[in-house]
């Protein structure tokens, strides 16, 4: 290609990115300043971009929860008005949008963010403006911001019961795999410590770039390692290729994949025959056979016919809204953010997964630990804790120094909310 063409191409790319930025600035509900009879809440999930699919179900869950709360009379007679902003799967846009919600719309709190990167992009605004984010996604931990309530589970809540069970019932030689970024690596670090603690052995550890689709090499490495079980933190559509390649290259569910990062939305794409017999762990599965869960799933499906399915994220987002409601009911003035954040400590909610509670000290949530075997495209739940498990943002297996301090470094410790 000639030099001039290259310049033109670069110019074109610049133009495209400017255009994209411009389009993502527009839209969103414009709101007048505070009127007395509503409480304004932000909803920050993507409608476009790479993670829009997952976040759609989270936006739906917010709509469902806030509409229910309003139908039941709102909070102390005040209705909730939710303002949805789309951050287009882009962390930089998330920063911009949280600013808009907090400074312009003056919301009392925001339910939002899916990826860790987008959450981290909001932290400095939250800190500067003393605002509140309720974050529903399961996450890697090792961060607790005073301005965030973490409703999604911490890795310990998926792993502490799952790993001993795997070592006892499936096999002791474990191969760790994951996508190549912070969430899988942090989760696997903890998994490795647990495996060694319970007398298992890690026979290999491999990471694939995000969106990777050829797993022949990794499957061969698994085969050569003599692994009896694969512990997976692969995320997104890579799972489809991985489960298919796993079988195509001669591995079976006799050496099962135990995943901490697939949900119902992946199962359909992987296909029944390729997912059959493998295991997965999450606080909630839509196959959970309780009255509350069944009602939740059928109500969601009757309200939203947009191709999304109920997953652990839907449930956690729904819970986030109700936890916020409970906290708002406890405070005199909903705009007093510090009081509102303090009100979260110890709040409980009878969620579709069972009763959950926000921890009194570390801003994370007590949730259930459940795992099951995939059969016929759904998860047959094999194990459920009888009550919600304690969240450990700094897991005691890796950070024994925090074991007796509610798993929290002191708030002024930079470890607390690295930025």
């Amino acid at each position, binding site marked *: 290609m000639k030099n001039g063409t290259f310049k033109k191409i670069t110019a074109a790319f610049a133009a495209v990115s400017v255009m994209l930025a411009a389009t993502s600035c527009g839209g969103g509900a414009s709101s007048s300043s505070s009127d007395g009879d509503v409480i304004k809440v932000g909803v920050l999930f993507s409608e476009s971009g790479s993670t829009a699919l997952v976040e759609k179900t989270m936006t739906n869950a917010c709509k469902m929860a806030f509409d229910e709360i309003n139908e039941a009379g709102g909070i102390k007679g005040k209705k909730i008005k939710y303002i949805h902003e789309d951050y287009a799967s882009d962390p930089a846009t998330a920063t911009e949008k949280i600013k808009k919600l907090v400074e312009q719309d003056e919301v009392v709190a925001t339910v939002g963010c899916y990826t860790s990167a987008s959450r981290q992009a909001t932290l400095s605004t939250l800190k500067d403006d003393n605002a509140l984010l309720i974050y529903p996604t399961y996450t890697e931990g090792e961060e607790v911001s005073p301005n965030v309530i973490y409703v999604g589970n911490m890795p310990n809540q998926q792993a502490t019961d799952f790993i001993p069970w795997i070592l006892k019932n499936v096999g002791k030689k474990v191969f760790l795999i994951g996508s190549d970024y912070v969430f899988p690596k942090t989760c696997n670090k903890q998994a490795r410590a647990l495996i060694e603690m319970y007398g298992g052995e890690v026979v290999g550890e491999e990471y694939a770039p995000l969106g990777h689709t050829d797993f022949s090499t990794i499957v061969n490495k698994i085969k050569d390692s003599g692994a009896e079980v694969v512990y997976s933190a692969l995320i997104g559509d890579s799972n489809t290729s991985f489960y298919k390649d796993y079988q195509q290259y001669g591995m079976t569910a006799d050496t099962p994949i135990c995943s901490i990062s697939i949900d119902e939305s992946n199962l359909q794409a992987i296909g029944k*025959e390729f997912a059959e017999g493998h295991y997965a762990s999450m606080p909630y599965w839509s196959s959970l056979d309780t009255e509350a869960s069944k009602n939740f799933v059928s109500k969601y499906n009757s309200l939203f016919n947009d191709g999304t399915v109920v997953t652990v994220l839907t449930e956690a987002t729904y819970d986030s809204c109700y936890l916020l409601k409970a906290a708002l009911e406890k405070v005199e003035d909903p705009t007093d953010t510090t009081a509102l954040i303090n009100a979260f400590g110890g709040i409980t909610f009878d969620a579709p997964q069972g009763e959950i509670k926000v921890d009194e000290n570390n801003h994370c949530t007590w949730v259930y630990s459940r795992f099951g075997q995939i059969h016929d495209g759904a998860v047959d739940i094999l194990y459920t804790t009888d009550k919600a498990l304690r969240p450990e943002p700094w897991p005691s297996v890796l950070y024994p120094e925090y074991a007796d301090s509610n798993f929290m470094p002191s708030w002024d410790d930079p470890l607390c909310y690295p930025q």
Partner: protein
Amino acid sequence: MGTFISQLINGLNQSSILLIATMGLVIIFGYMNVTNMAHGSMIMLGGVSAFILMEVLHLPFGIALIGCFIITGIIGMITEKLLIKRLYSKPTETILATYALSIILTELVRIKYPLSQNVHMPLPGAFHIGRVTIPYYNIFILVFSFAVLSLTLLFFRKTTFGKMLGSVTQNRTMTECLGIKTSTIDTLTFGYGAGLAGVSGCVLAPTTGVSYDMGSTYLTDTFMTNVVGGIQSFAGTAISSGIIGEGRTITAGFLNETWAKIIIFMIVIVLIRFRPEGLFTKERR
């Protein structure tokens, strides 16, 4: 040594996937000189067509292959008539327009299929030689991509249409003077290139599943393969698919997937520096 051999064989699979995904680009980017940023979306449309034909209409895989070629081919021809035709010799505008087109196609598919979909494996099973496992489907992809390559070469070298296309790319004005309708040739050629992209989407669908964003994975890889091979050269593209596919898989076998990507990209940068026209080019343009 064992690792090396099994990775060498796995590499063949990745190479043949690269080859079939890039072939449409050789025609559209190489011959027609259209920087088609929507190439990935054309692959995605092929995948979606495969899903509709095989999982909704329950047609056999062979028919789906032909169906995908026809469907994406027609979409390609419509695109050429409505959009590309107005933008020849305007590379910047073409990039913008085709990039916009790729967003439009992606979002349209996302409205209908927000979740990624499963396409069943038409050739399940594998055979084993020692510790090396070769899925039957990989052998199919290898044979199929070479068959498509040979057919395309025959089509371009031996048929009247192919010769007309050759003359259009060499000297458009002269060809027009000879009474050949170049605009029809353009439309058909673009349709053929898009059709090939569609076929590759169909072949990929059973291994990766189908999602609205599957195209973006292949856009960089296909342009890279094409540029390394020499943009107008089918043989060069076949060889560069082999180099990149094998290089990546073998490196991944000894290091890991992330490093394999980094190393291959570095090699490509060096290669492009010293051979900006690609490894195999017939003439300087």
